[in-house]
């Protein structure tokens, strides 16, 4: 049967879809899997930058679809992992340049040679989203513990069900244990209660994420990062392993907690 096609989507923009796609691609490649990541955000490409591959782009997804190059020519090999490839989005075109059928055909050509095809969906619920989910065997919905992001995730879940792609699995990104403890943020249990779908990842807020995309080295390459660890755990779950969820509140001992109490509950 070949590759599993996994689409990463969210509805709302800015919740961490591209970061998640990049990190899952790298984490799976580190496990020895053969992986292609596809940027389906035609016109607003970003996955290449987050992965540090922007200088190597010659052809893109639209060039493949319109027959200007072979699929292989648009696949950029990762500098560190020879079995990890990126197919970039076109930057100067819009979503109508690609159809759901194009996406299904492209994925089908790749299935036999790879273990995972990970598609980074654009924000929104229009054409770009429909393109991204068309070939999906599994859909991951990224959200943050905030009302607007959760509401949009719910809408996406509804649309996935309507398209027989549902219900999908949840990745809760940018979780702040300190705020949950103070009652000022919804916990992973709160969010899964509301959305009533399975959760496959809980990613803590991590100040290392921005520097890692600044330099084009996704955070999961950093062994000590907790967000990186969370992404590695998701990758293992995607491969069928049972991995327990990390404890969210491993931030310091008793004395530090006391200190934080006196400083008004601010952490880090």
């Amino acid at each position, binding site marked *: 049967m070949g590759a599993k096609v996994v689409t990463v989507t969210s509805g709302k923009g800015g919740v961490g879809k591209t970061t998640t796609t990049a990190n899952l691609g790298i984490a799976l490649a580190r496990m020895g899997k053969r992986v292609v990541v596809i940027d389906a955000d035609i016109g607003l490409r970003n996955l290449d930058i987050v992965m540090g591959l922007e200088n190597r782009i010659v052809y893109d997804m639209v060039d493949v679809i319109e027959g200007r190059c072979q699929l292989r020519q648009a696949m950029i090999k990762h500098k560190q992992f020879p079995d990890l490839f990126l197919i970039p989005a076109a930057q100067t075109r819009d979503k109508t340049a690609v159809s759901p059928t194009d996406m299904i055909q492209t994925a089908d050509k790749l299935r036999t040679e790879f273990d995972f095809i990970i598609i980074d969906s654009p924000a929104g619920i229009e054409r770009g989203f429909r393109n991204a989910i068309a070939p999906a065997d599994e859909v991951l919905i990224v959200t943050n*513990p*905030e*009302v607007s992001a*959760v*509401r949009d995730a*719910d*809408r996406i*879940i*509804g649309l996935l*069900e309507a398209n027989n792609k549902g*219900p999908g699995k949840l990745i809760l990104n940018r979780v702040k244990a300190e*705020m*949950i*403890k*103070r*009652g*000022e*943020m*919804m*916990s992973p249990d*709160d969010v899964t*209660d*509301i959305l*009533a*779908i399975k959760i496959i990842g809980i990613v803590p807020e991590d100040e290392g994420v921005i520097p890692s995309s600044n330099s084009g080295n996704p955070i999961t390459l950093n062994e000590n990062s907790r967000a990186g660890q969370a992404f590695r755990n998701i990758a293992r779950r995607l491969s069928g392993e049972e991995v327990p969820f990390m404890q969210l509140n491993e931030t310091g001992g008793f004395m530090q907690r006391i200190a934080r109490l006196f400083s008004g509950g601010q952490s880090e």
Partner: protein
Amino acid sequence: MTGLLERLLGRSPAKGSGTTAKERLQFILVHDRINLPPERLQAMKAEILEVISKYVAVERDDVDIFLEQRNRDSLIKAEIPFSGVNTQDEARNRMLTASNSDDDSLDDG
């Protein structure tokens, strides 16, 4: 569960904005999911009451008909107290007066 324990021990506030967020979302999503405009929902409630009033004397002030979620399914829940049985004649009379006074009797929320 630990949240409750911490609250009992006074370690965290009784109700932070996290709880508010959850409650607001639950309300918003019920309506998002069924995608039924408020006036249709109101009309449905009125019609349900009308049918039930044929058989029993409904205490309209205490009626509560609302939407709820169970997993990802939507439910209509109704609490409709009544004080006795309506005979067929009584029911007919009630229907007639209801249709005369019409609208204002229908929009209790």
